[in-house]
């Protein structure tokens, strides 16, 4: 067994593709996503103003909306059509319309109507400017009577209670800054690494068949199977094991950057993170071997693995929740390691729920890890008859 282990490490070191896929790409992706979203929340999203009233009130409201965190007044437009055109040209993501004679109608109690238009074509930007513009409009409507109330002698608490009788206290658990960085990176980075694990596992198995056909085998000139003394299960296990160790180390490196350097919240603690990492890596590898066993052609198996891996990003349920998908998809989502990974992360690491709550997901991941047991014979058959189709 030691010989096989050493042989595998030798293979990993010789071919640069392993280094690139196992170490360089995960680190690149980590750096990419965390630097892309380092702001946390997008700020100063450009919006437009269509001011048909041009009074001090509307200018005050414009300054107010500009001062808000998420929005920035990029330009003023003379007509609504031009503002809409600017959205189509991607110069702004929304605009506020102050109708003509708004202030004088307001003072005369004719109830004018101001409106804000927001485009959800980019959903993140759309929701953020919606929130800010709605707050401004609510404050504008409410603030009109504020001067009168102050003159009447109401205290600030009373004014607050009149303007907003029911206030909401939002407790964003785990991510109080509402940082998209924290929220998304935990799906994107492990998802990419699990995808790479699928591909590398399938690739490393397929390449054995390819090399055997070409007789480009190891320096001892012994075949892979002969070294394992005919025990194919052991052969696969010792092939996968060094990769497991490398991937776990890469994950630790990535997590020390995310948790240690960037201080992403992880109240769950170190041991749970280690458990989740190990489960993630072995379930992804197990699934990769299983796919290769089902379709012993490297090319097809890699295609299916990449399909599965890329679908995992959607099936993790972060952006669009799984419970909102159609029923067959909800069932299929159980076959994706990423889904369980994210669920365990959300419940046990971001929040501190007990592991018993996610026992079934742990069990699912272990089942995925042990799936190769079903297909060992098939891989052995493919290897012995070296059915590689170029």
């Amino acid at each position: 067994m030691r010989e096989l282990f050493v042989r595998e490490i030798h293979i990993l070191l010789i071919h640069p593709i392993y280094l690139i896929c196992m170490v360089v790409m995960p680190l690149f992706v980590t750096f990419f996503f965390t630097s892309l979203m380092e702001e946390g929340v997008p700020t100063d999203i450009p919006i437009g103003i269509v001011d048909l009233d041009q009074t001090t009130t509307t200018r005050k409201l414009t300054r107010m909306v500009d001062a808000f965190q998420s929005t920035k007044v990029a330009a003023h437009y003379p007509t609504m059509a031009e503002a809409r055109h600017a959205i189509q040209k991607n110069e702004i993501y929304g605009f506020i319309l102050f109708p003509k004679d708004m202030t004088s109608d307001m003072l005369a109690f004719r109830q004018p109507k101001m409106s804000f238009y927001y485009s959800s074509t980019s959903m993140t930007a759309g929701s953020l400017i919606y929130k800010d513009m709605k707050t401004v409009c609510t404050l504008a409507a409410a603030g009109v009577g504020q001067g009168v109330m102050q003159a009447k002698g109401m205290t600030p608490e009373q004014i607050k209670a009149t303007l907003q009788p029911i206030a909401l206290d939002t407790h964003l658990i785990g991510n109080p800054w509402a940082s998209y960085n924290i929220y998304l990176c935990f799906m994107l980075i492990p998802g990419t690494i699990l995808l790479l694990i699928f591909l590398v596992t399938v690739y490393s198995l397929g390449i054995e068949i390819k090399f055997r056909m070409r007789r480009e085998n190891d320096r001892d000139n012994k075949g892979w199977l002969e070294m394992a003394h005919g025990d194919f299960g052991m052969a696969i296990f010792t092939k996968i094991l060094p990769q497991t160790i490398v991937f776990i180390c890469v994950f630790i490196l990535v997590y020390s950057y995310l948790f240690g350097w960037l201080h992403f919240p992880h109240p769950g603690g170190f041991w749970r993170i280690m458990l989740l990492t190990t489960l993630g890596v072995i379930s992804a590898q197990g699934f990769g071997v299983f796919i290769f066993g089902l379709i012993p052609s490297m090319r097809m198996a890699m295609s299916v693995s990449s399909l599965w891996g890329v679908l995992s990003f959607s099936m993790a349920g972060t952006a669009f929740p799984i419970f909102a998908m159609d029923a067959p998809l909800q069932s299929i989502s159980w076959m994706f390691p990423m889904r369980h990974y994210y669920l365990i992360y959300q419940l046990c690491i971001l929040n501190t729920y007990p592991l018993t709550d996610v026992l079934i997901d742990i069990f699912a991941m272990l089942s995925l890890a042990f799936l190769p047991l079903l297909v060992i014979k098939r891989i052995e058959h493919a290897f012995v008859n070296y059915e590689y189709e170029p």
Partner: protein
Amino acid sequence: MKTLNAIFDAWLDELKMIVKDEGVMLFFLFLPIGYPLIYSWIYNNEVAREVPVVLIDNSHSAKSREFAQKYDASPDVCIAYRSGNMAEAKSLIGRGEAFGIIYIPHDFDKSLGRHTQAHISVYCDMSYMLAYKAIYQTATAVSSEMGSTDVAPLLFEEVPIFNVTGGYGNFIIPGVVILIIQQALLLGVGMIAGTRREKLRYGRALRDQEWKISGMIGHSLAYLMLFSVMLAWITLIVPRIFGFVSLVHGPTLFHFLVPYLLACIFFAITVSSFVRYRESVMLIVVFTSLPMLFLCGLSWPLSNISGFWQGISYAFPSTFGVRGFVRMSSMGAELADVEHEYLGLWIQTIIYFLISCTIYQLRGRFFYKNQDSTTK
């Protein structure tokens, strides 16, 4: 005439090669046809409805019951459980039966009656974005509706434009499908290039014109032919099947997608020249899909992407393609509105065309030199 014959031969050759290779067929046919269907199916429901929430009502008053009733009435959330304490509510969330907690304190009614500000707490985890949005926005809407005074001096109206349903599928699918075309081309062309390289290593002879520019044009025509059909499927038929917003005009779409497809083809030929083994291309291309999607400015607003990454994104046709197409399809933009992207695509087409020609010339020279040396 001879050139035209050469181009035709290369075109036919390439088509034969594509059809015989099942891996490439997978990428050229199944990927553009099947993936948009799969993704559209996943996001078909567009919004999250009736998100289960736990309600803790410590006030037991008419006002708190009114709040609960209005909250439950909203289509986005549903009060699945009523609990007496936080611990029980938390364990419900732990078991995955609910996604948030609404907590009404005991002095809710009293505060309202006393004309001081009453508070309602919303406990929610941002890990499932649409669930969080549903819970939080409904609470905001109900609380402001309940708290509104009889006569408001100023009314306001919120108008969502372009993505009127606020649907998730509407937002992401147009971008994803255009990116799929680029990735399918990269994968397929990369595989073919890898196969050719491996055949060379085995010493199998290749036809003369494969390494000349006429060969390259012939190959490009083959890809152009196949992918025009795919693009038509993706941009015109798929949105109509799933009911996505599709405001495209035929001629505008055609004018925009021609440079996009050409840029993708030549980009794929350029990248494929760096491929040694067939399978390596899959590893690299699949992994870059998600970063490329983010660089398009769809999920993360363009205004907030740093200059450094924006600069790098200009190398990929998908950056301009996705941006332009989303604006045309979801917002009904005209060609003049996507002028920046349109020019960018043409510039990319020209640059990558020149690079591909250079590669084919160099390769051809290398190939012919080798062949001469072996025949001697």
